[in-house]
C-alpha cells in the first residue's frame, strides 16, 4: 500500500466537503448577509457617457429595480422585452448595471434593441457585482426607498415572474411607505 495512492481519495473528500457547504446555500437567494441590508454603495461611470459617474443613491427615495446584465449574456437578451414592458408600464424605474462587458457592444445593443434603463452604470471589472453577490447575469434586485435590498430574482425575468414575484412585492413596499 502506497500513500500516494490515497491522493485521489483525498481530492474527493475535499470536493465533497465543499459540496456539502455549497448545498446548504441556495444560490437563487441572496446571501443571507445582504437580505434587508443596505445595498452596497458604488460610484461608477455611466455607460452612455463614461466621463460622468453615477451612483444608486441618486435614484433612491422610491423603490427601484437594479438589473445586472451584459451584452454577452444569453438570458439578458431573453428578458429584454420584459424589461422594456416594465419600463413602458412606468411602474418602477430600472437601474442597469452593465456587468463585465464591452461598453461598445453594450451601447450598441441598447441603441438597437431599446433601452429600458433610467441609467446604466458600467461595471467593467465586475467589482460592484462582487459586492452585490452577483453570480451571473441576469440578476434583478429590488431595492426599497431607503436603499435596502429587499428581494433578488436570479435568471431571465419572464412576464409571469414580473407579475407574480416582483409586482406584488413592489406594491407591498408602496403600502409600507405610504
Amino acid at each position, binding site marked *: *500500500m*502506497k500513500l500516494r*495512492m*490515497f491522493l*485521489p*481519495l483525498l481530492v*474527493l*473528500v475535499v*470536493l*465533497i466537503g*465543499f*459540496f*456539502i*457547504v*455549497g*448545498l*446548504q*446555500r*441556495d*444560490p*437563487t437567494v441572496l*446571501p443571507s448577509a445582504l437580505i434587508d441590508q443596505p445595498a452596497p454603495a458604488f460610484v461608477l461611470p455611466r455607460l452612455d457617457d463614461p466621463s460622468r459617474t453615477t451612483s444608486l443613491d441618486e435614484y433612491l427615495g422610491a423603490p427601484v429595480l437594479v438589473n445586472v446584465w451584459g451584452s*454577452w449574456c*444569453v*438570458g439578458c*437578451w*431573453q428578458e*429584454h*422585452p420584459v424589461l*422594456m414592458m416594465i419600463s413602458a408600464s412606468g411602474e418602477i424605474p430600472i437601474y442597469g448595471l452593465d456587468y*463585465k462587458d464591452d461598453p461598445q457592444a453594450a451601447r*450598441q*445593443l441598447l*441603441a*438597437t*434593441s*431599446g433601452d429600458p434603463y433610467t441609467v446604466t452604470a458600467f461595471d467593467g471589472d*465586475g467589482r460592484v*457585482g*462582487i*459586492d452585490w*453577490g*452577483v*453570480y*451571473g447575469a441576469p440578476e434583478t434586485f429590488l431595492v426599497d426607498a431607503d436603499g435596502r435590498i429587499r428581494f433578488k430574482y*436570479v*435568471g431571465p425575468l*419572464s*412576464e*409571469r415572474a414580473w407579475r407574480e414575484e416582483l409586482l406584488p412585492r413592489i406594491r407591498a413596499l408602496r403600502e409600507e411607505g405610504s
Partner: protein
Amino acid sequence: MIPELGHFVLWLALPLAAAQALFGIVGAHRGSASWLALTPVLARAQAWAVLIAFLSLAYAFLTVDFTVLYVAANANSQLPWPYRLSAVWGAHEGSLLLWALVLSGWTVAVARFRSGLPDAFAARVLGVLGLISVGFLLFMLMTSNPFTRLLPAAVEGRDLNPLLQDPGLAIHPPMLYVGYVGFSVAFAIAVAALIEGRVDSAWTRWARPWTLAAWVALTVGITLGSWWAYYELGWGGWWFWDPVENASFMPWLAGTALLHSLAVTEQRDAFRAWTILLAIATFSLSLLGTFLVRSGVLISVHAFATDPARGLFILAFLVVAVGGALTLYAIRAGTLAGGSGFALMSRETLLLINNLLLAVACAAILWGTLYPLFADAVGAGKISVGPPWFGLVFVTLTAPLALLVGFGPLSHWKRDEPRRLLEGRWVQALIAVAAGAALTWHYDGGIGTLIGTVLGSWVIATVTIPLARYLPLRRVPPRQLVGMTLAHLGVGAFALGITVASLHSEHRDVALRAGERYELSGYIFVLESIRPVQGPNYQAQESSVQVFAGEDMITTLHPQKRIYLVQQNPMTEAGIDAGITRDLFVAMGEPVGEGRWSFRIQVKPMLRFIWGGALLMALGGLLAASDRRYRRGEVVSA
C-alpha cells in the same frame, strides 16, 4: 392504470438490480457457478423492468394523461407528438428514468458480449453495474418519482419548456446520456479489476471498444448541444463555458485521456494504475455532472431542475460510488505497478504527455467550474469565472497537444530516435506554414490566427502519413488505423475552425425596417418583409431576409421571433445559411418602433469545421471500435 404499472415495475427493478449486484460480486468471490450464471439473467430482467417503466411514461405522454403530475408539468394538448415523446426526458424525473434505461441498456450489452472474459470477471463487472443501477433507482423512487398522480387531473398541461421544443434538443440528452452512462462500463471494469487485484491486457483489450463507443456517443451529444445552442439561443454563440456544458466536457477530456492510456496498457502493459484511475475519474466526472445539473449547487441557464434534497442524495451516491472505488484504488493500485519500461523518447512518453495535458485541462475546467462554489463556501462571496479564463486555459493546453499529435502516431513503442521522428517532417512543416499563412492572409488575421491555422494544418498534414504508407502496399489498412487517422484529422479541422471562427466572426446588432439593407463582410442583407405566422402552439413574427454577394442572391433567410402560448416565453429561431467556408446568421430581436426591428447579423467563417471536426472524431472512434480484433471475442493473453 398504466402509470401504476410503470411505478410498480420501477420498484420491481430495484431488488432485481440489488440481486444482480449481490450475485455478481459475491458469486465471483465464492466462485459459485450457479450464482455466476444467474447474474446476466437478473441483469436482463432488471433491464426489462426499466424498459416497461420507461414505455409507461412515454405512453402517458403520448395520450397526454394529465392525471400524471410530471406529464401535466411538461406537456400540453397542443404539443406536437414528437415533442410529447421527447418531453419524457424534458425535465428532471424523466431524464433520470432515461439515465436508468440507458444504464440497463449498457448492462444488457455487457451481458450479451461478455464472451472472451472469464466468467467471474464478467460477473463482477455486471455486479458493479448493478450497484450503480441500485443507486439511480433509489434516487428516482425516493426523491423523483415520475409517476406521481395529480388528482383531480389538470385541465391543461403547463407545456414543455420552449427551449426544448426542437429536434436538436430532442436527441441531444439521449446521446449525452449514452456517453455519460457508457463510461460506467469502463468504471465497472476498473473496479472489478481492483477487486481481483490484477490488470492484464485481456481486459484492457476488452475495455477499449466499450470506452470508444461511450466516447463516440458523448462526442456526438456535446456536438449536438453546441449546434443547438448556436441556432436556438439566438446569439450565434456555440459554446458558453456554462457549468452544464463544462459538466459534459470534463468527462469527455478524461475519456479522451483514458482512450489513449488504454492503448498503452493494451499494447505495452504500462500505465496500469493510471488507466484504472482514469476509468474511475471519467465516470465520476459524469456523476459529478449529474450532481451539478440536478442539485442547484451551481446556477446556470441549463439548470431547469434544482432541489437541495435531490442534491444531497446524489452527493451521498457520489460518496459511496466514487469514494468506494477510490478507496479500493488506494488499497489495491500499489500492487498493480509494473509493466514494461520505456525510453524517454518513445510513443509511451508522447502518450504520457498527451494524458498529462488532457488531465490538466480537465482539472483546470473543474477548478473554474467549481471556483464560485469554493469562493462562496469560504465566504468570499458568490463570484463567477468568465469565458476568458476557460479560453486561455483551453488554448494554452491544446496548442502543445496539436503539435504532439503530429508525432504520436509516427513514433515507435518503447524506444525511438528523435532524429528518425524529425526526419522528413520539414515537408509537413512547410505545408502547414504555407496553408496557415494563406489562411491568415485571406482573413487578414494576426499572430493568433497564424499559430492556430499552422497548428491545424500541421495536424492534418502529419496524421495522414501512417495511412499514406499503406497506399503503395495495396493492402487494406486496419480499421483502427483508419479510425485513429480520421479522429486526428477531426482534431486538425476542429483547430482550424475554432481559430478562424473565434477570431474572424463579424456580428452587428442593427435596426432595420422592410426594404432596408445592411452590409457585413461583403454580404448584403436586405430585409424584405416581416409578417406574422401561426405555429401549432406558438405565434411568431417571421422576417424574410435576402442575402446578396455582390449582384448574386445567395439565399433567403427566415428568422422568427416566437411567443409560446402557454408559458408566454419569447423564443428566437435564427435564420441560418450554412456553408463549408462561412455561416450567414440572422436573428430577430425586438420591435424598436417606427416599424423597425432589431436584428443580429453575423458572418462566421469556417464555423462548420468545428462541428465537422468533432463529428470526424466520432466517426473515427466508431471505426476504431469496430476493428476486427475487438469483434472476434477471443482473448490473447499477454
